[in-house]
């Protein structure tokens, strides 16, 4: 997937001179995961440049660039390091259009690798999407395939509002899928149906999509039930109608994410259904999530939801 990100950046930078890439080590080194490889070489260091070690600076300067005609793509090296920039993101980027009555706007994209999968421990593994989904004025986008990564990234950069673009680092090296050359976009705010089915629905995103797909496959194999796996892709704005429709169609729901459960993104999905479609529910709305603890290191694979935990949860809702 990381090549698709790189390809997306290159494509939109060619198309639109106002697109800039900035962050720590994004220049000559090409980024820690090589997502920005060769961009400085190709577009010059005016268009892709390293910054001092300050996330507050990266985002604050990015907000200024965005207000004055540029489309900055700011990289935060790991999502875990976004918190020094939290004020600029939630107080400034998210609220600029609103507080200025639309006089100033912030067409900025914040790219950052998130989630587990590299034995990164507490601070190279977090999934903080709920913080941002709760913040009005931001969009939150998480791809799960190379195709979507490129298309959603281009859409995010072209979007007139600030977009948090979370890249599941566990999938960076996965999926050898070819992505189309050149410009294309993927709609922000449409879910993707990964598998079809009407016996239960599993909502997920990012690195949990292949995990859930595998669980669905095993359920099919062992019980011949058809599970609908839905990749939410755009967490904000959420395609609520699609979520509710799937919940109504299936009557049995499982929500899966890596982030801790308590007040996690999944709680919103549950709440939404409990508020608008509870009468269709034939089982409890289950959540399979990371635990309500910081992210461990040695035991990472016990912390992260895996296909077996998802499988068990699907069984539970099927058997209720």
């Amino acid at each position, binding site marked *: 997937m990381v090549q698709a990100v790189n390809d997306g950046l290159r494509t939109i930078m060619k198309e639109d001179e106002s697109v800039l890439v900035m962050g720590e080590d994004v220049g000559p080194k090409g980024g820690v995961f090589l997502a920005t490889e060769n961009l400085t070489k190709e577009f010059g260091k005016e268009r892709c440049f390293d910054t001092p070690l300050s996330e507050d600076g990266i985002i*604050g*300067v990015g907000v200024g660039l965005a207000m004055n005609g540029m489309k900055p793509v700011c990289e935060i090296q790991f999502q875990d390091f976004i918190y020094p920039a939290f004020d600029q993101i939630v107080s400034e980027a998210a609220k600029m*259009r609103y*507080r200025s009555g639309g006089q100033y706007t912030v067409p900025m994209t914040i790219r950052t690798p998130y989630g587990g999968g590299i034995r990164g421990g507490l601070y190279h593994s977090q999934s903080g999407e709920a913080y941002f989904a709760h913040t009005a004025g931001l969009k939150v986008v998480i791809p799960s395939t190379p195709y979507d990564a490129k298309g959603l990234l281009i859409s995010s950069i072209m979007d007139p509002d600030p977009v948090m673009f979370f890249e599941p680092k566990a999938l960076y090296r996965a999926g050898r899928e070819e992505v189309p050359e050149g410009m294309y976009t993927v709609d922000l705010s449409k879910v993707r149906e990964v598998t079809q089915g009407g016996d239960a629905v599993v909502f997920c995103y990012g690195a949990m999509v292949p995990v859930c797909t595998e669980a669905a496959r095993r359920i099919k194999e062992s019980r011949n039930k058809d599970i609908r796996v839905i990749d939410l892709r755009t967490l904000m704005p959420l395609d609520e109608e699609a979520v509710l429709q799937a919940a109504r169609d299936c009557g049995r729901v499982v929500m899966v994410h890596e982030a801790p459960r308590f007040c996690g993104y999944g709680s919103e999905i549950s709440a939404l259904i409990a508020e608008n479609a509870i009468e269709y529910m034939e089982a409890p709305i289950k959540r399979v999530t990371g635990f309500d603890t910081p992210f461990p290191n040695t035991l990472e694979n016990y912390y992260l939801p895996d296909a077996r935990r998802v499988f068990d949860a699907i069984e539970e809702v099927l058997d209720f």
Partner: protein
Amino acid sequence: MSDTLQIIDESGKKVGKAPRLKRETLLRMYRAIVSTRSFDDRCMKLQRTGRIGFSIPNKGVEATSVGAAAALDAAQDWIAPHYRDFAMMFYLGIDVNGMFDNMFGNADDNAVGRQMPVHFSFRDPVNWLSISSPLGTQIPQAVGVAMAMKQRGEKGIALTTFGDGSTSTLGFHSGLNFAGVFGSPVVFLCQNNQWAISCPSEEQTASESYAIKGEAYGIPGIKVDGNDVLAVYRVVSEAVKRARAGEGPTLIEAVTFRMGGHSTSDDPSRYVEQSEFDAWEKRDPLFRFETWLKSEGHLDDEKIAAIRAETDAEMMAAAKAAEAKPRPKLGTIFSDVWEQMPPHLDAQMNACISHFAERDEAVDEKGEFPL
């Protein structure tokens, strides 16, 4: 204030080389200061009578703002402002009605009644970034604004202002550091008005001065008498010139004083000694400039009285007009969150509108702003 540039001293006497400025310009500067005082007075009355919730007095710091504004080219330069320097806008030719629309948060307010009073946002007569309550956030933003101009080969520069207290924020540190590294065309103007609410300037930092903080970022730091409008003009002009010429950023510390409370609700007698007020009363920037202008023959008492009467009347009229306007429509709670309103917000808006259509309006009681 040994190493602090001064041109007109406290008694109104010229002690340095005055910049060559046209009479109209000087009078425009003077009028801007007087307008600010009129605005302050009007707002204090409005707040005391409960018609607006809050204002930020500018008495004492106007020379810093006006001197800086006069050094800009409004057609191409941007301002990323602090909340206590809107005297700049009077100099630059703002429509006062727009300012009072904001004070009342009415339907015509640029901020659509979403922000507290004095949180102005303008595109005209200058790009004046939307004022934020969180302190210091405008500083790196100004650097970004400036970098964009530099990148496009434009000649505009960004001026950003902030208080002495704001130098402790993250935005100060990241903004100055980035500007130093990228050589961005920015002027950083620190309004050292001796206080950050109740924290005195000397307890904000142990550094020798605020200007010296530039050293930490490879940025020249200059200290100026902030109550001397000509000295501020001179120093900011030079910094603007350097920035415009591609010679990078400058940090300026304007030494001035907040001649009153932090806001209309604050009682500074809890923490400022009367003697401090008295001492600074003698350095009043308006008195000083007025005295000098008189001595140069640009002003006389009659003219002064006329300008005061005019600005008072202007503020009164604008306040009245703004007060009479309706408040923003209910839908404005929901617009401008994103360019396009997502379905969930649309649903919330419709529910809200029908809720209040069916019944009376919301109770309009309001708590008091404490500070």
